[in-house]
Each structure stands twice: as structure tokens, then as C-alpha cells.
């Protein structure tokens, strides 16, 4: 490989370790797709099985879920900007954009928790019926993923501040970027497939 080509390749792809980790993470994401697909399928099969619990149409609100969607979509955008800044080699703006991403992720999580508490207050809990079990586990699994991502990102921020942009840290940031965008895609399906449909049926 000529030195020109090396320059074209982003830093995270320049070592063999970096390349393999990224391929491995893509395959892991494929497994995650199957995991969420199974949860969506379970939700679809159990749709309408409310038993004595409230109907989702009465609980879901367009406004709050739309706000959550916008927050998460924006966080995906800021995460993309962060990787862009990383490619430019600017540690400071990389850190700033990642911290914005983190803040947006945290506020999404706050909204989701208050949503769940609201539903529980209205009598829709994990235990109330098959439908609500499927709802809470599907949305909750996404929420747990976001929580995990937040913790992970915090650790990477510390490593970035300590070490700057190296082939290892850039690989780590790139991979958490993939993870974060993936969670965004899953949320779009939850927003449309669960919330929007749940509101009208």
C-alpha cells in the first residue's frame, strides 16, 4: 500500500487491529438487529393483548414521544459531527461534541423514565398484560442500551482527555459512534411501530 493511500485512510482503519475491531463490531450489530427484531416480532404478536390494563391509545402522547425522537436524532447528528471533528484531528471540538451527545442521551433517558413512570401510574406495568410486558421489554431494552452507551461514552471521554486522538482511541470513538447511530435507527422503529401505531389503533 502506498503512503498516499495510508493518508487517505482514516486513523481508526490504519492498524490491522482497528480494522478487525470495526468489522467485528459490525457483525455484533447484525446480531443486535436480530435481537431487536425478535423483540419487535414478540411485540407484534402480543399486540392487542391488553387484558384488564389500559389501552395504549389512551396513554401514548404524540408530544413527549416526538420530543424524545428529536432529542435522540439530534444526538445522532452531534455524534456524527464528533467523528467528523476527530477526522480533522481536533481533540477539543471532538470532546465538546461528544459531551453534547452525552447530554442529549441523558435527557432522552430522563424523558423515557418519566414516560414509564407515567404509564405505571395509570396502571400499565410490566405485569399488567402480555401487551404491556412486550412494550416495556422492547422499549426498556432500547433504554438499557442507551444507558450502557452513556456509561461507555463517559469512560471514552476520560481516555480521550488523557491520551488524545490515537489509532486506538479513534477506533473506540468510531465504534461507539456506530453503536449510537444503531440505537437511533432502532428508536425510529419504536417511535413509528410502537408509539405512532399505538396511538391510532
Amino acid at each position: 500500500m502506498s503512503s498516499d493511500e495510508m493518508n487517505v485512510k482514516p486513523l481508526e482503519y490504519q492498524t490491522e487491529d482497528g480494522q478487525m475491531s470495526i468489522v467485528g463490531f459490525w457483525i455484533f450489530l447484525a446480531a443486535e438487529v436480530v435481537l431487536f427484531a425478535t423483540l419487535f416480532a414478540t411485540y407484534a404478536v402480543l399486540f392487542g393483548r391488553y387484558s384488564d390494563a389500559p389501552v395504549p391509545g389512551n396513554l401514548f402522547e404524540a408530544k413527549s414521544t416526538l420530543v424524545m425522537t428529536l432529542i435522540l436524532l439530534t444526538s445522532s447528528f452531534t455524534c456524527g459531527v464528533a467523528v467528523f471533528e476527530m477526522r480533522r484531528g481536533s481533540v477539543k471540538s471532538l470532546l465538546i461534541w461528544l459531551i453534547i451527545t452525552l447530554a442529549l442521551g441523558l435527557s432522552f433517558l430522563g424523558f423515557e423514565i418519566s414516560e414509564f413512570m407515567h404509564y405505571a401510574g395509570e396502571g400499565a406495568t410490566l405485569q399488567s398484560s402480555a401487551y404491556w410486558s412486550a412494550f416495556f421489554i422492547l422499549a426498556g431494552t432500547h433504554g438499557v442500551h442507551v444507558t450502557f452507551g452513556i456509561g461507555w461514552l463517559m469512560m471514552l471521554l476520560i481516555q480521550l482527555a488523557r491520551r488524545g486522538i490515537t489509532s486506538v482511541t479513534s477506533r473506540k470513538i468510531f465504534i461507539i459512534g456506530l453503536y449510537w447511530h444503531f440505537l437511533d435507527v432502532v428508536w425510529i422503529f419504536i417511535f413509528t411501530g410502537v408509539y405512532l401505531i399505538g396511538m391510532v389503533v
Partner: protein
Amino acid sequence: MGLDEFFVTGEPLIYAGMVAIVLVSGAIIFLLTYFKKWKWLWREWLTSVDHKKIGIMYILSALAMLFRAGTDALMMRTQLAFPDMNFLDAQHYNEIFTTHGTIMIFFMAMPFLIGLMNIVVPLQIGARDFAFPYVNALSFWSFFFGAMLFNVSFVIGGSPDAGWTSYTPLAGAAMSPGPGQNFYLLGLQLSGIGTLATGINLMVTILKMRAPGMTLFKMPIFTWSTLITSFIITFAFPILTVALALMTVDRIFGSQFFTLTGEGLPMMWANLFWMWGHPEVYIVILPAFGIFSEVIATFAKKRLFGYNVMVWSLILIAGLSFLVWVHHFFTMGAGAFVNSVFSVSTMAIAVPTGVKIFNWLATLYKSKIKTTTAMMWALAFIPSFTIGGITGVMLGMAAADYQFHNSYFLIAHFHYVLVAGTVFGCFAGLVYWYPKMFGHTLNERIGKWSFWLFVIGFHVCFLPQYFLGLDGMPRRVFHVVPEWFNLNVISTIGAFGMGLGFAVFVYNIYYSYRHSEREKTGDPWDARTLEWATTTPVPEYNFAVIPHVKSHDAYWDMKQKGETIYDESKLEPIHMPNSTGRPFIMMAILAFTGFALVFEWIWLAVAGLIGALVIMGIRSFDYDEGYHISVEDIKRTERSARGQSHELR
């Protein structure tokens, strides 16, 4: 909770089991202490990230599990030998058929095959290790501790008793209260993490780390079967993860997925379970196909017939494996149309499988067959597996399945494919690659004894079960009626024949360790693929110089041209990963977490989970770069292994 609820009480057989566990663990602790081997155990094995050592640990554990689940099987066969036997009561019988099935699939078949993949695949593709050695160690320990968590159930808390398929509502909290079923859920969940990680790891290894020149269609066929298997693992195991998690949440946190209350849907479990479960069948058979292909090509001294077609049939089988799951419950009543679709897709699998059978036969055709023990396992596989396959097509016809369903006909069918396919494959693979692992071949004479005992025992055991099924004997009954007596007693005799065959196999390991000639050439079978190009024992870096591959059967070609893979002028320092105890510790903590969840001690489980997360965090901050082996060290190792140690002086 009192101690009498914690420990299983009142069963003499289980008391005997407890005594055996205490004695065996005591003996191991004593021997390790007496010979001062604790440090050795920790440094050389428990913290190793070397794929060869991890592979050996997988296989040792799998053999232990084969012993445990085989004992279950013999106890079942003893109970069924005569009408109205009272060897086991109904509850104990339920527990034993559950643990037999679960252990054989999860803790015997898969780890055995994954162990062979661990040892062989990097060597076959000319790589120095897995793509992610640390993750590989994590995978092994997750399997190991998952298996321990599951196995401890028979003395602490009680074994699961709802069958290895654990159908709801029977397996739900209402009908199976107590910790037994939780052991099943958490043991499998823990080991499932490792299996998924191994799938990803192997896929990256094979896709990214092949020696230069080895294109996909020049890969050895076992590596191909591993690649396809890891693909199936990656797309099937998340389904099991979800299914197990949902049932766990049902049982421990009161959700309503598979319950009879709250409009839950018990048959949803059967769907989820088999959407994973059928691909799983191919996860344990495709690698065996790969092993047989290697063994047959080696001992027929021919290139595998129809290599490309063999690969494409593997791919086709893998694709179809995701489209047939409903055939496990045709009688659920999904309707004629659905059953017809799944009936057709099921029977379609027979086509690529048949292609493979004929390709093996064509490889053997007009060849000079060397009947080594490994080859005999492969030769026995072809007709035995075909019987299992054909009866599988019979079961695949939905209308006929209403008669066969849950009868011994089914039991005979899947033992014919799983034993004749997977178990014969594991034995063939172990015998075949044994010299690469341990530096000496297994004794052929004793090996053939174990072969004949096991194979004859196998047919005597399972052939009668087809007819028992046709006579109407259902599975999972613990009393037989006099009409079924003759065939049952024959079957039991066969089962003990298999047990004897296994015992002789294990004895052969000991005997060969003591008496077998040490292997010096690195290539005792005059074989064809790259793993035989390395010296024996394989150095930790596998290949001093990464070989260049020009054709299929790379090593065979090199031998024809008089080349070796070693070229001292091309040596460079080799980068190696450091050993680490974290995978062991992390999985031990997760096993503790699982154990706490089994007894629904939620806060203890939360603490365990935090502990595991802390270890992941430590790993994230760890920038351990590994170390390099110097050219001088490589030279020394290679010269002594290649019998040129005098030149060094």
C-alpha cells in the same frame, strides 16, 4: 430459606452424586497442592488466551459433560429396561431427561465442536491466533461457568424438569415453581453470551486473517463449515437470548409473555425456541460435516470431490435452516397452509444434504482408503446419518408427523442424526487432530475397540426405538408397558454398549499418553491442509513465517513440490497478546450473579452485575499492547522443533 431447601434431599442417587462431587473435587485440590501445580494451572491455563489451550479446555470440559449427560442417559435406559421398574421416580426421571438433552446440546456438542474449531481453524488458515484472543478466553469461561451453574442444580436447589425445550406454560412460574427452571434459563444465558462472541470472533478471524493467497474458495472445507456455522450462530443466538430473557422476566419479575393469565401466549415460546433451535441443529452438524470432509479427503488420499458444490450446499443448508422451525410443532394447529409451507422447506433440506452424501461417496470411489480410526468414524457416519436423514424427511411430512409426533420414532431420528453426525464427528475430529494437540497419536487398536463398541451399541440402542415409536411408545414416559418390553431391553443393552465404547475411548487417552510414540514429523497422516505444516507441538505463535497459499490443499501442494513453510531468512519479531485473568474472574462473577438470580436474591444479583461491569470498565482503560517474541527466540524454538538443535551450538 433453610439448608434442607437449599440442598436437594431425600434421593439416594443424588446423595451419591454429592459424595462423588466432594471426593473428586477433594482429589483434584489435593493433587494440585501435592504437586504444587496451582500456579501452573493459573498461569498456563486459566489465564491463557492461546487458542490452542482454550480449545483443549473446551474439549476436556465437553468430555466431562459427555460423561455427565451420558450417565443421565444410562439411568434413563435402566429405568425403561423393564416394565414397571422403580429405579427412578417420575420427578427424578423428568429431571434427568431434561438435563440429558440440555447438557448434550449446550455443554457437550457445541463446546466440543467449538474446541476443535479453536485449535484447528487458525492453523488451517495460517493465522497466529483468533482475531480477538481476549474475547476468546471470555467465551470459554462463559461457557464453562454457564455449564457449572447449570450442573450445580442437581445438588443445590433441584434440577429443571420441563424438558430441554422447556415449553411454557409447563416451564412457567405457575407450574414449575422453585429454582430448577431458573438454573436452566441462567445457565444457558451465560453460556449463550460466549457462543455468540465465539461466532463473531471466528467470523472476523476467517474473513480477515487468512494467509496471503488463500481466497475464500481455497479455504479448507472445515474452515468453510466453521465460517457458515458462525454465521448461523450470529443470527440465531440472539433469538435464544431474547427467549430466555423473556421467560426469566416472566418467572422472576412477573411479566406475562408466556403465561396463561394476562393474555399471555405460551405457544410464542415454542416459536421463539425453535427459531433458534432449528438453526442450532445445523450449528452442531455443519462443523461435523466439515470434519468428515477433511478426514475422508485425507485418508482417501484425494482432493475432496466437488469442493465448490460442498461449499454451496453448506450455504444453502444454512439459509434453509432458518425457514423450517414450525416442523417441530406441526400439531400445534397452525393450519394446513402454514404446515405445508414448512413441510416443503423441511424436505428441501434433504437436497443439499444428499448432495454432500454423494460427494463423500464420490471422494471414496476408486480411492485407496486407509482405515484408520478417524476414517472409520467417518465411514460409519455416512450410512448411519443417512438413516437418520431419511427418517427426518418422513417426519417432515406434516400429515404423517401427526402420527410420529412426540413418539420414540422422533427420538430415534434425532439420535441418529445427532449421534451419528455430531458425536461421530467429534470423535473423528478428536482422533484426527489429537497428534496436533498433544504430540502423539491415539492408539489405533484400542481406538478401534472403542469404535466398534460405540457404533454397534449405537445401532442396537436406537434402531429399536424407531419401531417402539411406530408401536406407539411416547417420549418422556418413565414406565413402559409389557408390549414394549422386548425392544426396550435391547435398546438398553445398546446404550450400555455405547457407554463401554466411551469408557474405552477415555482409557485410550490415558493409555496413549503413557505408551504412544511421540510425534516428530508434525504430519502423521500425510494430510493436505496447513495445520499439518506446523511443527508438533505447535509453538505458541503457530507459524514462524506466514505461509503463502497458491491452491486448495495448500500443504499437499507444498509437499509435492518439496517446499516447507519455514524460511529462516524471513523471520520477524512476532507480536503476541498477554495472558489475563480477567475473563475468568468476570465470568465467575457473572456465574455468581446468575446463581443469585436463580434464588431471586435480587440485590445480590445487582451487586454481581455491577462487579462484571466494573471489570469491563477496567478492560476499557487497559492499553496492554502485548509483547514481542524476538527473532532469536523463534529461531531457537523452530530449530529444536525441527530436530536441528545441534546446529545452534
